[in-house]
């Protein structure tokens, strides 16, 4: 053995590895718990968005129903914004608090914003395609599917993942959302009105269960 190792205070290379892993683990657990809490925040925000739209649709009907002009229709493209802002502020505050112990790198913050942009981008791209093609689509079914597709993409790109389990959870969670949207759409067929009623119930429940449940799992295993 090299003489340098002599100075290690009886520290074997194996013990050195264990020490490094312990220091890493100290923060890994905190980061995983914070990730889990982030999932839980969005597990409340996502159903809240669905419920807000459901309530608005009771008031004015969906834009695709041909109900004519209504002053509140302007709310449809922007109703999600206050909820998303609440989610964003809660997430940023959480990670800012975690940052007292684990300084977040700017790349990680960019990943969070990019994740939101992917999901919102897919949802709006889909609505644009629906508007152009005039295909009768249940709005909530599309949003649920778009959320799922977005979440799978984020998982595949490995964004916002502390470890392999979290990455698998992103992919699995996304697949569950897509599966729920597909299963509901196939089961209800062309009954748009009935499908709309079912998806008013299915969409917030599924997204809430997947995101909140996933977050609960992440925090419990950390």
């Amino acid at each position, binding site marked *: 053995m090299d003489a*340098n*190792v002599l100075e290690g205070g009886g*520290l074997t*290379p*194996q013990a050195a590895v264990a020490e490094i892993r312990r220091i890493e683990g100290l923060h890994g657990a905190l980061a995983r718990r914070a990730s889990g809490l982030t999932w839980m925040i969005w597990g409340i925000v996502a159903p809240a968005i669905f419920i807000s739209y459901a309530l608005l649709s009771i008031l004015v009907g969906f834009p695709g129903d041909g109900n004519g002009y209504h002053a509140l229709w302007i709310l449809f493209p922007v109703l999600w914004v206050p909820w998303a802002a609440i989610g964003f502020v809660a997430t940023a505050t959480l990670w800012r608090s975690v940052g007292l112990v684990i300084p977040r790198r700017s790349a990680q913050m960019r990943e969070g914003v990019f994740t939101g942009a992917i999901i919102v981008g897919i949802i709006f791209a889909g609505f644009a395609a629906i508007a152009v093609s005039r295909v009768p689509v249940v709005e909530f079914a599309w949003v649920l599917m778009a959320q799922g597709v977005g979440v799978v993409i984020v998982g595949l790109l490995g964004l916002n993942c502390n470890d392999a389990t979290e990455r698998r959870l992103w992919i699995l969670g996304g697949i569950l959302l897509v599966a729920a949207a597909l299963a509901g759409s196939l089961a209800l067929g062309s009954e748009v009105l009935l499908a709309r009623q079912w998806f008013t119930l299915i969409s917030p429940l599924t997204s809430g269960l997947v995101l909140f449940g996933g977050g609960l799992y992440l925090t419990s295993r950390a």
Partner: protein
Amino acid sequence: MALPSLDPIIHQATRLRIVALLFRNRTAAFTWARDTLGLTDGNLDTHTKRLEEAGYIRRGRVLTTGGFQVRLRITPEGDAAFRAYLEALREYLALETVEPTPSTSLPSTDR
């Protein structure tokens, strides 16, 4: 085959923990590092001075709402040294599995 050398500045239990902590976080308050690593003020101070002398970390004072706070920051040299240390450790452990030694724990000369 000769085993790779491990940087004697880093290869000491307390200093290794300090450098690993700073490598992960880049910067840390002195008091927070002390509490996180379960060290005394004197112990942390002694080892951080040694690391400062080697140019691996830098100590600074920042004004916070609670007054001046001593902060430790890893330097680019420290970052590179820790990466080299990790690499040497990997090589060491890989070689040791090929050429097992009776014991890798040797008496301490560092006090």
